[in-house]
Structures are given as C-alpha cells and as structure tokens.
C-alpha cells in the first residue's frame, strides 16, 4: 500500500510538473508563427519554480493527505521496502526428520524448502531468527542477515533422536515474539508434522501470516511403537512385555517379524499376529531378569524404531515395616520385615502415620448375629472396596475409625458418620478396620479382602524402576535401554499438510484491525481534492 501511495504522490508531482500535451501540426505557413509568444519549452516537464496558484495549493493538499495516510496504512512498515521485516524460522530437528524419503532425509528437504521460500523474499527481509525444536526449543541464531547464511546454519544442524513437542511451537507462535535485534514480522515452521488445527483458527498463526511447511512424504516403515510391561501388582515383578509394532506408509504388515534377544542370547523370532489397524502386538515372556533386545524386520524408512532394549529388574519380596500384632502374616504373604526402607508400613494407630505409604489398622472385627450396622455411604470407584460384600460388612462388627487427619476420605461409612474404611491419596495411606481374620468364614474373607485391597492399592502406587528410558535433550543418544521410542516419530504415513504462503510484505491481521480506521478517510479526502484540482485545471485550460 505504501508503494501505491508513493506512486500516487509521484504521479501528482508529475502531473503538476507536466506541461499540456502539444499536438504536432505541420503548416506551410508555420514560419509566420515564429514571432508569436512561445507558450512553453519542448520539454513535457516544467522544472521551474512552482507558482503559488490555487491549483498548486490544492495539489500540495493532496500530497499532504497521502503522506498522512501512509503511517496509518495497514502493514505499511511491512510493505515498505525500506522498512524490512524480521522473520523467525523454526526448524524441526526431531528423530523423524531423519526419515528417508525419495533418497534423502526429510531434514534435507526442509533445508531445500527453506532455501526456496526465503531466498526470493530476501529483499523484503531484514534478518532471520533461527530456532530448532524437538523436545525443546533452542535458539540457534538471533540475527541472521541473509537467506544464504540461514540455509548454511540450518545445514549444520542434524536431526536428534528425540520426539517432537508441538506445544513448544504453538507457544512460540502464539506468544509475542521475543525481543531481540531482529524484530519479527512472521514465522516459518519447517517440519515433517502436518499443520495442527490451531494454526487455522480465525485468530491463529496462519491468519497473522505465519507459515507451516510440512516437508514429509509418505514412506514405508515398520517399527516398534510401544513397549508395555506386565507386572505383578503387589510385588512389582515383571512377568511379560507387550511389544506393539506398527507399519506405516504402505509397509506390508504381514511381512513384519519381531526378534527377541533375551539375556541368555537365545534369539527368538515372532511373527506379529494381531494387527489392529496399523499396529500389531507380540506378548513376550520375560522369565529372567536382564536385558531383552527387540528388533523389527524389515525396518523401513525410519531407523530409530527398528530396535529397542529393556532391562528387566530382578524381583524381590515386598519390604514391610510391620508394627502390629500377628506377625505370621508376613510369612503368609511372602513379605519381609524392613523398617529402614519399607515398601509399606502397617501401623496400629493413626498417630504413627508419616509421609511413607502405610496401612493403619483399626480395632478389628466383632462379627455379630444381631442387628446389622447399615452401610450408609461408600465410594464405588475406590479400589479399597473392590470385591467387598456389603451385606457381610454390615454384620462384620467393624469399629469406626478415630478422628482421621486431613487428607483422608471416607470410602465406607455407616450411621452417624462413622468411618470404617478411608484412604489418602498422597502420601498414599489407608485406614482399614483390622487385620485379616483367621478362618474361612465370610467375615474372614471380607477382612482379608479389605486388607489386601489396601495393600495392593498402596504397593502398586510405589515407584518402580522402568524397563527402559527415552532419550532426552540431556541424553539425546540411544544407549542400552535408553531408546528413542518417542510417540509418533515412526509414523511415516501421514498425509502432509502445509498452511500459508510466505509473504513478508503481507499485512498482519491484528495490524489491519487496529489501523483500518483512519487511512481510508485520508485517501478519500486526497481523492476528492485531486478531483477538484483537476476540474479547476480543466476549467482554466478551457479559458
């Protein structure tokens, strides 16, 4: 728009300076006109000092109105070639950017895309800010002066075996551009992920001129999608693992096999039998502790999901700080006494609670044959009441809990707000009426169920050593059971989806809204004055 105003102003100056168009006339008696006053020189442009006529003042008014309109014009600064804009470039360097497509890495395609989009607009760009993202957003350079330098910087980057955290990109596009030497006008995101829906919201980044470039193309790939361990809920012992395998981008799933190398080195190969959509799974028994390595064949275009390793820890007995009577239950349950580093504490009173997981044992049961104690409320979804027979509960003769400290919530209670079973989420703790009773009666089974529900609920919440860890920005390279099995990185079959056309001169949406008010009026006024001036000029010319 600035160019338009500039052209209008220049045209006005030329009109003012231009002399009328003298038509050429050939007369045999032309020589008899040579004594007449000459009305003008042969030049169409008058360079003489302007005469302060009414027309001159009108033309000055038009120029002034146009000049006033320029700073109010939307995106005047962006469109003005002399006021160049800064461009922020966010380049995806996650593991999936190492995917091979058409004989080259996606990262190479990103470099070419960046070169193609930035170089032609170099004249309108003051500088670039370069950042790379995967699981973290890192500023590479904050003042790159040329497209060539930008491409060179990106070429020196490499994909890292990390996942893609698009929320970082969303925040970068949504938040105000960080202050720096290169004032940002628009942002280019170059990635192999399809443009997310939030890009296209009415007030989203695309509406403000930001561009999302998805360089991905579907490529056949098979790999491990997930590893799910199966552990004993009380002891935590790893019994088996489910290896989830995926096939993407046209890879034939029936040809995919999984090889498992257990600690003893005896490799076993499994066909992947149960495909559910793009994924199938194999349940692998893990009979012994140690490292198990899984490998998918054929691997395909993306290599970081072809192999994964887990470390199965050796399982041991549950360590318990048993502070109540009837210690024979330790042996019955296969638990061991450990007061220093227990997995669970079994306490006789509420006052002994601390921040460690614990079960507080109440006053016990007194089965009765008389009137039952009606259960008034219970939390059906609580694991502490799983499998309980409430009819038995009403005849079990449970004693109510004493005053419970803050954080406990009643799970099973009776009349007059008496609490029989309660739980505390953090630190994990439970109040139960008593230890399991001996015998095979219904109340004994009820008491055992209540105690074991509480023990399992607490023990399964204790932290367990993972079978594997994922690579992280601090430790980005896979090693042993540190694997690059980040979600979605191996999905090479997505349909690419780019959004936006890069135009650093395009107005930004919020500027349009803010500056739409004044400049049209100024331009309109200039147009009216111009028409009046031209009309007067015509009238005077006709005299």
């Amino acid at each position, binding site marked *: 728009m600035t160019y338009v105003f500039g052209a209008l102003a220049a045209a006005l100056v030329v009109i003012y300076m231009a002399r009328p168009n003298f038509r050429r*006339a050939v*007369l045999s008696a*032309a*020589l008899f006109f040579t004594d007449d006053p000459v009305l003008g020189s*042969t030049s169409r442009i008058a360079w003489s000092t302007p005469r302060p006529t009414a027309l001159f003042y009108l033309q000055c008014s038009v120029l002034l109105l146009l000049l006033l309109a320029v700073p109010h014009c939307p995106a005047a600064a962006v469109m003005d070639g002399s006021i160049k804009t800064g461009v922020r470039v966010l380049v995806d360097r996650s593991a999936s950017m190492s995917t091979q497509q058409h004989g080259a890495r996606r990262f190479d395609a990103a470099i070419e895309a960046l070169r193609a989009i930035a170089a032609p607009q170099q004249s309108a760009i003051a500088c670039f800010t370069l950042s790379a993202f995967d699981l973290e957003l890192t500023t590479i350079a904050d003042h790159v002066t040329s497209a060539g330098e930008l491409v060179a910087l990106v070429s020196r980057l490499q994909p890292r075996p990390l996942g893609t955290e698009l929320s970082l990109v969303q925040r970068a596009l949504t938040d105000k551009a960080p202050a720096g030497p290169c004032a940002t006008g628009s942002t280019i995101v170059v990635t192999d992920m399809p443009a997310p829906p939030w890009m296209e919201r009415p007030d989203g980044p695309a509406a403000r001129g930001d561009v999302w470039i998805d360089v991905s193309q579907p490529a056949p790939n098979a790999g491990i999608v997930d590893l799910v361990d199966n552990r004993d809920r009380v002891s935590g012992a790893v019994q088996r693992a489910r290896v989830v395998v995926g096939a993407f981008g046209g890879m034939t799933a029936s040809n995919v096999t999984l090889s498992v190398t257990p600690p003893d080195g005896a490799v076993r190969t499994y066909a992947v039998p149960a495909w559910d959509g793009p994924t199938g799974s194999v349940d692998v028994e893990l009979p012994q502790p140690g490292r198990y390595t899984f490998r998918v064949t054929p691997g395909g275009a993306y290599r970081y999901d072809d192999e994964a390793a887990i470390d199965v820890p050796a399982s041991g007995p549950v360590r318990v700080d048993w502070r109540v009577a009837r210690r024979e239950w330790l042996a019955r349950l296969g638990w061991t006494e450990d007061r220093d580093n227990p997995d669970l504490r079994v306490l006789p009173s509420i006052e002994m609670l601390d921040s460690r997981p614990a079960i507080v044992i109440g006053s016990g049961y007194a089965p009765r044959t008389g009137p039952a104690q009606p259960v008034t409320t219970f939390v059906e979804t609580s694991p502490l009441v799983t499998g309980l027979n409430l009819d038995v509960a009403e005849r079990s003769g449970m004693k109510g809990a004493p005053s419970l400290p803050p954080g406990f919530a009643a799970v099973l209670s009776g009349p007059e707000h008496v609490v029989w079973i309660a739980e505390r989420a953090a630190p994990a703790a439970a109040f139960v009426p008593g230890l399991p009773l001996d015998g095979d009666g219904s109340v004994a089974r009820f008491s055992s169920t209540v105690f074991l529900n509480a023990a399992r609920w607490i023990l399964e919440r204790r932290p367990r050593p993972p079978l594997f860890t994922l690579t992280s920005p601090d430790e980005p390279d896979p090693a042993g059971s540190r694997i690059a099995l980040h979600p979605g990185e191996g999905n090479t079959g997505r349909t690419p989806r780019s959004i936006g056309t890069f135009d650093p001169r395009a107005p930004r949406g919020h500027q349009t809204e803010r500056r739409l008010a004044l400049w049209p009026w100024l331009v309109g006024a200039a147009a009216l004055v111009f028409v009046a001036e031209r009309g007067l000029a015509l009238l005077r010319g006709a005299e």
Partner: protein
Amino acid sequence: MTRSGSGATPEALPVPSSQLDRYRLRLRQRDRGTVAGAHLIRQRGQSLEFREFRPYLPGDDIRHVDWRASARHHRRGELVVRTFEHEVQTRLVISIDTRATMRLPDVASKLQLARWFAEAMSYIAARSGDSVAFHALESGRVIEIGSSADRWRIRHALERVSAQSERPATAGAWTALERALPPGSVWLVLTDLYFADEADVLSLAARIRHAQQGSRWVVVVDFDSWACETHRVGHGLHRLDGPGVSAPEPRVRLTPGLLDEVRARIDERKRRFDRAAAAGGYDRLRWTWPAAADPAPADIFREHFFGQEIVRRLVMPDGAR
C-alpha cells in the same frame, strides 16, 4: 512527413487533352501605343488573316483596296482598304516555386496544383504555336519546351523542374531566366510567396518589376492553401512544424484570433510584394484551397482553371475574340 514537407504528388493532370484542345492562349489587348511586339501577339500588317476595313490612306498598298467594299462605301468616294493581321509567336515562361512550403499540404500540395497548371498552360500555348520554357524559381534552372505539345515531354520537363533543389539560385541562374524571357514575353510565376526571408520576397519582386520594363507581362499565381491547412489543424495547443521552422518547435495555442493575426501578417507581406513588383505589367491571381480537411486536388484545379479569372485572362475557347 519531414520538416521541409513532402514531395510533389506524381499525379497526372486531371484534364484530358481533348478538353484543353478547345482553348488557345489569350493575351489581353493592351494599350501600348506604338510599342510593337510588346506582349501583343497580334500585329496589324501583312498577314494571312483579314482583320478589318479602314479608309485608304496615302502610302497604303493599292493592292489592299477592296473595290467592292469601296463601292458600297458611299462617303465621298473614299476608298476602303482591307487590313490583315498575322500571328506572332508568343513566348511563355512559367516559373515554378519548388520550395518546401509548396509541397504542403499533404492532401493537395501546392506544387502539385502548380505543375498541373503549368502543364495545362504549356500544352495550350504549344498548341497555339507559342514557345514555352519552364523555370525553377529555387534553383534557377530553365528547361525549354519550345512549341511541343507532347504532354509526356511537358510532364517530364516539369518533373525535372520541380525536383527538390539542393542549392539556392545564384546570380547566374537569374541570367539564364533573363535570356529565356525576351521582351514582350509572358512570365507566369507560380508561388505561395511563403519566403522565410523578407529579402527573398523583395528580390523576387524586384526581378518582376525589372521584367516589366521589357514590356513583359508578369502574372504571379498565388497558391493559397491557408484555409485548408488551418482547418485541418484546428484550434488548441500545438507544436508547430513546417518549412523554415527551426527546433525547438514553437508551442502555441491556436485560436481564431491568432490565426486571423497571422493571416493578416501574411496578407500584409503579399501586399508589400505587390507594391514592390507592380510596374504596369503585373497581376497577382489567387488560387485558394477550400476550408476542408480533405479537399480533392482535381476539384481545386478544375474550379480555378476553368472557372476563375485566370482562365479568362490567359486562355480562351478557340474561336472566341
């Protein structure tokens, strides 16, 4: 179009020979007293053609007495003598102005009309037995036609005369004209009188005045295309171009007032020319172009050659007296 104007249109005279054959050169009777042979081409005396009866005077050839007529003449027995006249060859010199101003306007150039006029006059004169010569006013070149009525030869001579001159006339060139222009001859000057230099105008006027002293009759035919050219140009802002205009071209607003003013200036120059040229045997005749954008040259020619004074004063239908 160039600054010096276009060349002459090579069109043939739009009048057939059969029409011109009906005319002969007519030179006016002038009361020149005893100046025999002035531009009177008919002299009394021994000739082949009867002219009139008159009373016998002493010294008259007795053989010329018409006895029958004398017998019918009853006035005191006077004798009546028969007088005769004989044809004397008339010299006609046609000077053609070939300057660039004559090559305008494009649609009907003055030079084209002048050539047609010269062709018609020379054909009629030659058919009458008179002698004709062409003279280029700009270069001074003289081409003799003699009494040839061959229209191809006439036209060819006109082309040579009206060719663009590369050098101005010299004093020697005027000498050649004087030799070709004996006393008693008729000199037709075909020009528009648009000379850039006033001195050139006065020089031509002086030549014409001098020619009249030799009992020559000088007729200046003034080709005036002003009305046509100004009509075509119209009014408004113009860069004027044309012969004699040097760069930069004058930039003027053509208005009726300005055109009238310039026209008056041209007329005043022509009046000064007349005053300088007239010495008893001088006439200036005007051929005017109509105020039309695209006039037909043939129509202009026919209108003036057959319908205007020029015809009546220079040529007449054969048999008329």
